[in-house]
């Protein structure tokens, strides 16, 4: 965002970028936090930090991973700031029911509830892969893991998720 970043053109481009990316950023923050209100707070704070640090964004094509990295940091900060207590997953699911509901598709709502039950260490790489289209190497770089560790987490994520959803996992290899 080197062109006129402080002027009207730069601001308009940054605004357009935020508008285009916001749905995906909010989805990512939601699946990270499992809390719509917190996700919106994190995305808002992310936009603010991104605006302040816009000079470090080399190109608009790199914007999405750049924003996602800021979101992950901001979520970690909010976690420290609020000292979030361990909460019951069923309570979380009940609280976020409007977000998890899928009109005319109970299976989809159940799958979303099952995603809530996945441990964060499995849920996050799965969201990066399926929703954000990250490759294994990109996930490894973002999470600071080896590619082998990412593949293991993705395998366990689907294995657990399929079991939670009542899928036939009898042909799955042992974890």
């Amino acid at each position, binding site marked *: 965002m080197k062109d006129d970043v402080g002027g009207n053109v730069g601001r308009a481009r940054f605004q357009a970028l935020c*508008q285009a990316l*916001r749905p995906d950023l909010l989805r990512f923050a939601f699946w990270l936090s499992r809390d719509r209100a917190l996700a919106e707070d994190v995305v808002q704070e992310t936009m603010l930090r991104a605006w302040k640090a816009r000079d470090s964004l080399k190109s608009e094509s790199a914007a999405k991973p750049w924003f996602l990295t800021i979101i992950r940091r901001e979520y970690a900060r909010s976690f420290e700031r609020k000292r979030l207590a361990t909460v019951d997953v069923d309570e979380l699911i009940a609280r976020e029911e409007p977000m998890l509901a899928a009109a005319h598709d109970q299976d*989809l709502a159940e799958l979303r509830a099952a995603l809530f039950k996945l441990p964060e260490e499995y849920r996050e790489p799965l969201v990066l892969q399926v929703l954000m289209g990250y490759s294994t190497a990109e996930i490894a770089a973002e999470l600071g893991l080896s590619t082998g560790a990412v593949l293991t987490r993705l395998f366990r994520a689907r294995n657990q998720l399929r079991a939670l959803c009542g899928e036939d996992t009898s042909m799955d290899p042992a974890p």
Partner: protein
Amino acid sequence: MIDCAEYRRTVLADPHAASPELVEHLAQCPDCPAYRERLLRFEGRLAGALCIDARAPRARAPGSGWLAMAATVLVALVVGTLWLGAPHASLAADVVAHMAGEPEAWARTEVPVPSAELAPVLAEAHMRLNPEAGMVSYAQSCLFRGHHVPHLVVQTARGPITVMVLVHDSVAEARPFDEGGYRGVIIPVPGHGSLAVLAQGERENLVEIESLAARVKDAIVWTG
């Protein structure tokens, strides 16, 4: 050659993995093709499940309001009219909103648009469409984000799908979406913007729609 356990371990980590070893195993194994098919069906549902409605009304937790309010004020002060003050219209949202204006286009029919009507719509985007795309039952040149773009409906075995040729809107990567009762994907078309392909209904399979999008994309002949 890898065995079934290794094959399944690999595709459970990445269902779209297609190394030569995986392809070779798949071609020779009597059981793994069915396993992969079930996994890809699940993957389509998973992609749909993750695509929550980002514009759904917010259910705020008690006590968290002050934080968002403070953040909102701060962002508004610093960034001015940045995204808070503007409509949060993504490309997908605009495509979905456009659908509402032409509900008649979704009719299931066996009557194709005459070539004499289809050709000028496609020509505006400097393109032709090979028959492999499927039968086009609706073709209009529509005003979308300030430009006239082809809005087509293609009849497929699973029903009608809408195709919008967005030569003025680029995306870096395929973007599945699930909004307003429509499911679809916007795929990049290098040098020619993007292609939005969508179907009506929450039960639509995103993997199948992505496959249809690829088919339509391959059937386009760019003339300019």
